[in-house]
């Protein structure tokens, strides 16, 4: 089966491009980014602020068992309904510098659309670190599960 989501990360470059084709009209795809309640549903995060306009700001926060485990914020530089969002992204409480994100929404057919996310990082090292995050996280998850199994055997 063809992979719907592609990640293009050329070695030695501080950028990465994520593309995805959706079985949704472009208007609905854009709405998923525009409507705070809908963002909360698919991102699994709380939307504290989302000002969809030039020079607007946004802030997301994710909690797990009462503790904030992830928070991020940024400013919206460009906002063209149904077409594009350009924004900054900063993960709070991490060493990651601000990254720049260009989101482009395109109509493919009346019922399908394409999203292109072009992310630019401060350095190649930070780009590579970002790519490795889910990998490192996966290891932690496996570790936690091992711990649970070990605990259950006690």
């Amino acid at each position, binding site marked *: 089966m063809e*992979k*719907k*989501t*592609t*990640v293009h*990360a050329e*070695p*030695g470059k501080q950028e990465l491009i*994520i593309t*995805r084709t*959706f*079985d*949704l009209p472009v208007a*609905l*795809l854009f*709405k*998923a980014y525009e409507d705070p309640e*809908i963002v909360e*549903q*698919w*991102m*699994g995060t709380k939307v504290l602020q989302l000002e969809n306009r030039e020079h607007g700001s946004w802030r997301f926060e994710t909690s797990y068992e009462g503790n904030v485990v992830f928070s991020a914020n940024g400013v919206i530089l460009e906002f063209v309904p149904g077409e594009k969002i350009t924004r900054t992204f900063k993960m709070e409480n991490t060493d990651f510098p601000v990254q720049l994100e260009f989101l482009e929404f395109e109509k493919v057919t009346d019922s399908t659309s394409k*999203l292109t996310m072009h992310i630019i990082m401060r350095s*190649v090292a930070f780009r*590579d670190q*970002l*790519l*490795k*995050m*889910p*990998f*490192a*996280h*996966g290891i932690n998850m496996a570790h936690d599960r091992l711990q649970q199994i070990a605990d259950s055997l006690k």
Partner: protein
Amino acid sequence: MNLRRDVFQAIADPTRRAILLLIATQAMTAGTIASNFNTARPTVSRHLQILTECELLTQEQSGREIYYHLNPAKMKDIADFIEPFRQLWEDRFNKLEAVMKKYKNNR
């Protein structure tokens, strides 16, 4: 984890990427590889050493010559390395698609 980071750093260098591309089609000796670059021979040797240490290249003795081969298994590791990141976005976007289909039907 260290090994993986090293592999990533190894392919971040343009000369080393060029060496990998060059060897992809056929195994070569250090001399032949060096003759393809304007870089000094010891510099090319250093690149070959790094690529060999990361297991991206393997050495094979043939008579008096040592041939360098590409290690496809290790190259695949690099592709696999990005896979968890891709999967993370795939899952997120699948969720988005499902949420929006439900939204459309409920209107």
